[in-house]
């Protein structure tokens, strides 16, 4: 465990973090240990985001630093190690809407809170949500939308999950742009989340927490 690496990553010292990563790997530190440090740093980043010390710029830079470190580590890893059992969550921006900012922040926060996030991207048709829920046995679905047209897409997605006989097994949250409690009611979802932290607490409440967190 390198406290220094955790500190560099969490404090947004990109160059220092990358240099130290190379140094550690060259010195024979196990690559998984480096990745564990990154995970610890991401937890800190997430906590600072929750406390409103960090905002989107830090979140995005943290993601970039993580990407660069992972690229450095990859050649040192032989065979993939599976992550611990995490609770699957399906996330996506509903059909007809291509906005991804809010959805991406929710994905990031769910991920660092230990959920196994299946990000379906944007403009996702209802059937794709249904298939993913079936495939992953996810018990939480998060529907994002920015435009007013997303109100109907959300409703259709919830209906499709219902029609597939999966509704009883999942809790569904909605959020983003023009979405509010009224939309959750209209779409027959289970809850509205105003921000990424709300998404995390809803997911935790519905699943009784998660393996890592």
């Amino acid at each position, binding site marked *: 465990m390198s406290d220094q690496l955790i500190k560099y990553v969490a404090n947004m010292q990109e160059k220092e973090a990358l240099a130290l990563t190379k140094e550690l790997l060259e010195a024979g530190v196990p690559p998984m240990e480096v990745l564990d440090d990154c995970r610890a740093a991401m937890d800190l980043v997430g906590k600072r985001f929750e406390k409103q010390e960090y905002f989107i*710029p830090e979140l995005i830079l943290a993601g970039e630093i993580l990407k660069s470190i992972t690229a450095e580590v990859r050649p040192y890893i032989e065979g993939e190690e599976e992550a611990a059992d995490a609770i699957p969550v399906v996330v996506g921006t509903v059909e007809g*809407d291509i906005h991804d900012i809010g959805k991406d922040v929710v994905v990031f926060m769910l991920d660092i809170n230990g959920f196994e996030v299946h990000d379906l991207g944007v403009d996702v048709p209802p059937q794709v949500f249904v298939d993913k829920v079936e495939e992953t046995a996810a018990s939480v679905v998060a529907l994002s939308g920015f435009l007013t047209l997303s*109100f109907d897409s959300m409703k259709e997605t919830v209906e499709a999950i219902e029609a597939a006989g999966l509704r009883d097994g999942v809790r569904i949250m909605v959020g983003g742009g023009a979405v*509010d409690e*009224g*939309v959750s009611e209209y779409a027959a979802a289970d809850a509205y989340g105003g921000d990424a932290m709300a998404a995390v607490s809803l997911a935790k409440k519905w699943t009784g927490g998660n393996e890592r967190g």
Partner: protein
Amino acid sequence: MAKNPLDKGKSNEKLLAERQQRLNDALQLEQPDRVPLFMPAGYLLAEYGGVTHAEQHHDFDTAQELLEEFALDFEPDSVLGLFNNPGPSLVLGDRMTKWPGKQLPENGSFQFDEHEFMKAEDYDDFLDDPSDWAIRTYLPRAFEKLDGFKFLPPFIMWCFGHYHLGNLPMYAAPPVQESLEALGNAIQVALKDAAHIGESTERMAALGFPPTFLAGALIEAPFDFMSDTLRGMRGIMLDIMRCPEKLLAAEQKALKYQLDFALSFCQATGLKRAFIPLHRGSDGFMSLEQFERFYWPQLKEMMVTLTEHDIMPICFYEGVWDQRLEYLADLPKGKTAGWFQRSDIFKVKDVVGDTMCIIGGMKNSLLKNGTVEKVRARTKELCERVGEGGGFIMSTGVGEMEGSDLELVRTWAEAAREFGAY
């Protein structure tokens, strides 16, 4: 001729004058005879008339007839159809917009598809000569049909006067010629759109409806200018962290040249407003510290300079601004207006009610999924609390009423007249 009891029997000329006065009073922070009602109908017009979104975009006559029918039916003080049209974008192969019936299904809704057209490594070139960079680097990246402009010689060569004319054959290269031709075609299409706007304005005025109060120069907060059509969300957020000084320098260019544009636009058209849709300054995107450095000072300078030239900036405060309303309270009183999408509208009234006209208040979700009672109650509360003392234009929070329940829209219009009287 109006149907509603308050306006029954008034001529269209009188209705036009009264509506115009009502809107102007509210914008000037004064108290009109009643709270003006603004409906940014958008695609609701297509739903109202049973046509597709694509038809509404591509068929001016149909769209205009629906706008007229809708306006006469619901009798708002101001009404807006679609705020932009695909013509020039389609001619130029615009890579940042998606349109119903083209890249989207017939009933899809217009979307802005953000790209990183400017890379982080482009800052030095951008700062060195933004206009040259715009034409020779940005346009080929952003518009498929303007790809040929990348073969043009640097524009400063024109300062070589006579001696540059020997280089003119470079303009004859086939890709350059194709791009020039595409630009010429786009200009013709844009002229047709502009003629439609003129015709629409005249026809609406003849029916008693004033030109949209949002008409004016369309510009952006310098930060958003660098973000929306240049660096994209991911890029701009990384710039805050990785190259803050370059971002700030670029914002100064975006400030200077947009002001230059807005002032000459207003001079040429006689319009006295600038519409500034704000995107990345709301709560949640950046910290207050970052806001104070990268967003607010540049936007404030833009707005203050406009007001000094008697131009009223009307900002669309997208998202939630609850944590930063105090900054807005610093703006010159009665010289700007704010359309609030999702901020706590009552808090907005408390903090900036003495500073600017407030536009908004009605939740789109309520018009879609509410009840007559809930819509009436919300309208009443808005009239009483936000409308108190004037300076309020009732509107939906989102500038688009797609999917609204027409009976609830009717309820809203009637309630606004009933409860909006001063």
